[in-house]
C-alpha cells in the first residue's frame, strides 16, 4: 500500500464515519436546527467524497449550492416555522419500527444486490479528461447524441418556475397593497 493510497483510505473511512454519524443525527435529533447543522456536515463530507473521486468541480458546486444555498434556505425555513425551545415529539413506536424495517430492508436488499452483481469496471488507470469543468460545459451545451442541452434548458425552466412559484406561495395575499412591495422583495430575497 503506497502512501497516497493509505491517505486516500484513511480519509475515506474518516469522512464516511463522520457523514454516517451526522446523517443519523439529521434524522434523529429532536431540535430541528441542530439537524440542519448536521445536514450541513453531511453535505460538506459529500464534497470531500467528490474530491476523493476526482470530481473537484462537482465538489465546488456541491459546496456552493448545497451549503451556500440549500442549507441556508432550510435554516431559514426552520427559523420561520419554529422557536428555539421547540423539540420534536418522538415518532410513535409503530412508525419507528416501520421506518427501521423498511430502511434496513432496503439496505440489505441493495447490499446483496451489489454483492451478487459484477459491474463492468473500467480500466484501472483510465485517462481522465484534462479539464472536467470544460468537458461538463461542452456536454451541457452540446446537442446530438451525447449532449444535454434539452435537459439543461428544462432544468433552467424548472428553477425559474420554482422561484416564481415560491414567491407566489410565500407572499401573503391578505396584505394591503402598500406593504406588498416590501413583502415580495423579502420573499424573492429568500427564494433564490
Amino acid at each position, binding site marked *: 500500500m*503506497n*502512501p497516497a493510497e*493509505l*491517505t486516500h483510505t*484513511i480519509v475515506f473511512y474518516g469522512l464516511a464515519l463522520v457523514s454516517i454519524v451526522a446523517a443519523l443525527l439529521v434524522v434523529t435529533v429532536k*431540535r430541528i*436546527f*441542530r439537524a440542519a*447543522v448536521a445536514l*450541513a456536515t453531511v453535505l460538506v463530507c459529500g464534497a470531500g467524497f467528490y474530491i476523493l473521486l476526482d470530481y*473537484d*468541480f462537482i*465538489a*465546488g*458546486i456541491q*459546496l*456552493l449550492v448545497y*451549503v*451556500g*444555498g440549500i*442549507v*441556508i*434556505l432550510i*435554516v*431559514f425555513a*426552520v*427559523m420561520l416555522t419554529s422557536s*428555539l*425551545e421547540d423539540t420534536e415529539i418522538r415518532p410513535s413506536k409503530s412508525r419507528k419500527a416501520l421506518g427501521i424495517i423498511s430502511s434496513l430492508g432496503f439496505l440489505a436488499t441493495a447490499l446483496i444486490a451489489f454483492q451478487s452483481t459484477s459491474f463492468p469496471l473500467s480500466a484501472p488507470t483510465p485517462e481522465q479528461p484534462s*479539464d472536467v*469543468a470544460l468537458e461538463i460545459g461542452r456536454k451541457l451545451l452540446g446537442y446530438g447524441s451525447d449532449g444535454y442541452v434539452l435537459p439543461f434548458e428544462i432544468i433552467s425552466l424548472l428553477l425559474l418556475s420554482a422561484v416564481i412559484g415560491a414567491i407566489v406561495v410565500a407572499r401573503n395575499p391578505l396584505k394591503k397593497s402598500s406593504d406588498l*412591495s*416590501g413583502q415580495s*422583495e*423579502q420573499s*424573492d*430575497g*429568500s427564494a*433564490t
Partner: protein
Amino acid sequence: MLENLLTHSAFEILTLSDRAAQALAENPWEAAGYTLLALGGTGAFLSLLGMALIYVERKVAAHFQCRLGPMRVGWHGMLQSIADALKLLQKEDIIPEKADKLLFFLAPVFSIIATVLALIIIPMSPSLQVVDLNIGVIFISAVGGFGVLGILLAGWSSNNKWSLLGAMRAGAQFISYEISVTLSLLVITLLAGSLQLSEIVQSQQDGWWIWRGHIVGVVAFFVFIISSTAELNRPPFDLPEAESELTGGFHTEYSGLRFSFFFLAEFINMFIASALGATLFFGGWMPFHIGGFETFNSIMDLIPPGLWFAGKTAFIVFLMMWVRWTFPRLRVDQLMRLEWKFLLPVGFINLFAAATIVLTKLYFFPGQ
C-alpha cells in the same frame, strides 16, 4: 530582502500542512507535529493580520473624524490592538441561560473556519499560495456559505429576538448579494479563461483586467466591491449587526473570546475580499504591465510581487474603510432593491458584454 524574508517565513508556516500530509505514511508523529505547527502558525498569522487590520481601521476612522485615534500604547498606539486582545481574552465568557449551548459554541467556529478556508487559496506572491485549487473561484464563493451559516447559528442559538432578526437579515443579504459577486467573478473567469486563481493572475501579464476589459472590467469591479461589502456586513450594509437598530444583531449575546472570533473573522474577511478584488481585477501580485512595452515592464518588475499584492490589497481595504466611515446605513428593503433591481440586471448585462469581448477579442491591449 525583507519582503523575501517575510514571504519565506509565511510560506514555511503555511506549507506545514502539506508536509504533514507527505509525512503521514512514514511517521505519524512527525505528521502530527507538523499539523500542530501548521495550526499554530495559521492561528498566529490570522490574529496578527486581524490585529493589524483593526489598528489600521481605527487609525483611518480617527483621521476621517478629525482625531488621532489610539496614541498611548506603543509608538502611535501600535500595540493598542494587542492590549485590546488581551482585554477581550480576560472577559467573562457569558452564555445565555436559555441558549442552545452546542450551537452557541459552534457558531464562531464556523465563522473562523470559513475565513481560514478562504485565506488559504489567495495567491499572495508567485511562491506564497498555500493551495492552488483548479476551482479556486468557485471554492472561494462556496466557503462564504460557512461564514453566513455561522452567523445564522449565532442569531438562532442566542435565543434573543434582536439576534434572530439580525441573523435573518444576514441570511437574506448573503443569498442575494452572492449572486452579484458570482456574476462579477464569472466576468473575470470569462476574460481569463480559468477558474484557477494563479492562472487568472498569469493571464494579466499584458495588463490588468480592470482596464484591459474596457468598461466591463470597471463595472464588474464596482459590482464586486459593492456586493462583497454587503456580504462582509460592513457599512453601509451592516444591517445584520446594526448597533443602533438591533443592538449588535447576531453577536449581541457574545462576549470575550467568542466575540473576538466573530470580530477577527469579519476583519480577515475584509482582507480576503480585498485580496480577491486585487487578484481578479488588479492582477494580484502581477506588476503593472503594458503588453508590448518590454522596457517599461522590466522596470516594473523591479518591485517585488509581494509588495504589489500588498499595495493593491491595502488600496481596496482603504476604499472599504473610507466608505464605512462616510456612509450611513441602508434600510432592509432598500438593500434588497439595490441588489434585485439594480446590481443584478447590471451584472447580467455585464456578463453578456464580457462574453462579446472574449468572442471578438476586443481587449484593450490585445497582447501577443
